[in-house]
């Protein structure tokens, strides 16, 4: 009865080149018939990142001085276990290599976790979302030209906070989010981009980073103390420091490394302890967002006004999930990175979509008529 009209609006004939029969079993026949290996999302990730282990590990493209950090830690700890531990175990206690070992393991694990964990990257807005936001901005502002700074003000705990529009990610950045130019990603609760760990430090890996620098300061101080004790014991009895250094040359290297790093690492740990206790990020502290420099009465709206609760909320809060779904598969018909719909629709160019809708309307009219 309605044979001709049905043929008219057959969407497959319009969109995909495959001359398949009408689908009885679902959407599968509409897909392109060439068998492509399904791609994972990390392979088309737009930021400047590198992925290892099939998307399980993520690191910034610029690895910075991460190899140097790992090398320094390994060398110093290695020399400690080879040169100092035997002497100290004999003359003091065998707890020393145990403590050193535990600290070393902690440092290495937390360092690797800081470097290889997604810091809290926000996925970029889908084209539909971006279009929706553009529409809203144009509605409220001047439509003849786009004013350069796009901001939105929100009230957070009675404090006015300005949300900036990110031109790269095409969305208004949530509070405390910042766009890292090195990684080309918006990162939630952005603290800083650390070249020593080769990654951004943000919401998801801040606790790893904090544990890393605290345990590293303990390790450095511990090695420094042990080396000093070792050399002091060897130099006893009038033998002198030079003699002690000649007997244990590795200790000299450790002494130099530890002496120069312990101050900066202890300082950094102290600084971050202050940040954790007041629920601030390095980014906010440097910019003076909540210090009232401009004379306004501003307070940190994210602080819980209690040091203990602040520490717990930063370090012991539930671990947020990674939002970028690195290992998920791309929908098979989305290899050209079109809109992010979840429905298995054939990818129509806008022109043919309008075409289909017009023909649908025609059909609807003939059906009801």
């Amino acid at each position, binding site marked *: 009865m309605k044979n001709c009209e049905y043929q008219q609006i057959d969407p497959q004939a319009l969109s995909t080149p495959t001359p398949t029969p009408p689908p009885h079993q679902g959407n599968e026949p509409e897909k392109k018939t060439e068998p492509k290996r399904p791609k994972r999302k990390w392979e088309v990730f737009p930021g400047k990142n590198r992925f290892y282990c099939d998307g399980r590990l993520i690191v910034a493209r610029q690895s910075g001085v991460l190899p140097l950090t790992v090398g320094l830690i390994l060398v110093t700890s290695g020399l400690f276990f080879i040169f100092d531990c035997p002497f100290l175990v004999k003359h003091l206690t065998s707890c020393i290599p145990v403590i050193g070992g535990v600290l070393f393991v902690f440092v290495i694990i937390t360092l690797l976790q800081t470097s290889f964990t997604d810091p809290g990257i926000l996925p970029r807005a889908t084209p539909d979302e971006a279009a929706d936001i553009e529409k809203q901005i144009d509605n409220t502002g001047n439509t003849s030209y786009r004013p350069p700074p796009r901001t939105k003000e929100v009230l957070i*705990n009675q404090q006015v906070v300005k949300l900036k529009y990110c031109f790269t990610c095409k969305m208004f950045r949530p509070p405390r989010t910042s766009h890292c130019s090195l990684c080309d990603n918006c990162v939630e609760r952005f603290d800083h981009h650390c070249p020593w760990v080769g990654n951004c430090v943000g919401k998801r890996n801040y606790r790893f980073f904090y544990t890393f620098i605290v345990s590293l300061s303990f390790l450095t101080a511990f090695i420094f103390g042990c080396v000093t004790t070792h050399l002091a014991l060897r130099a006893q009895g009038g033998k002198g420091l030079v003699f002690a250094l000649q007997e244990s040359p590795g200790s000299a290297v450790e002494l130099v490394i530890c002496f120069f790093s312990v101050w900066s690492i202890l300082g950094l740990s102290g600084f971050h302890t202050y940040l954790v206790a007041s629920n601030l990020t390095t980014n906010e502290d440097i910019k003076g967002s909540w210090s009232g420099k401009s004379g306004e009465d501003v307070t940190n*709206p994210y602080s819980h006004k209690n040091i203990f609760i602040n520490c717990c909320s930063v370090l012991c809060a539930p*671990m947020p*999930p990674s939002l970028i779904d690195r290992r998920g598969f791309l929908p098979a018909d989305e290899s050209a990175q079109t809109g992010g719909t979840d429905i298995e*629709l054939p990818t129509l160019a806008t022109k043919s979509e309008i075409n289909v809708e017009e023909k649908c309307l025609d059909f609807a009219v003939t059906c009801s008529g």
Partner: protein
Amino acid sequence: MAETHSLQDLQQPAVSSKVFVQRDYSSGTICRFQTKFPSELESRLDKQQFEETIQALNNLYAEAEKLGGKSYLEGCLACLTAYTIFLCMETHYEKVLKKIARYIKDQNEKIYAPRGLLLTDPIERGLRVVEVTIFEDRSIGSGR
């Protein structure tokens, strides 16, 4: 012939438009969505129904991010093991995300799909928006 046509209709509805429910940052950075009813949905859905869905989602996300005794314990234990337990254990947040996915699927099946709408799980949009896809009204010729 007519059945084939209506099956095709139901399986390939054309997307009419999408509505995005944005985040509500008035209580800070916790995950909350605005409960304001979008005008585009007025013809399809009850205002109260929509608000109930969003409020339920907000409550679930609040549960995921809640700072309480259990989360502190999990955090401290994780710290003591140098956070290696995250490799073997499913975190509290992930468990609640699964609950949220089930809830959204349930809401879609019961309430939204019969009205030609589809909720997208916010986690697939980076927890930025709740995307509501509005499908073209195909109530003509489909025997509904």
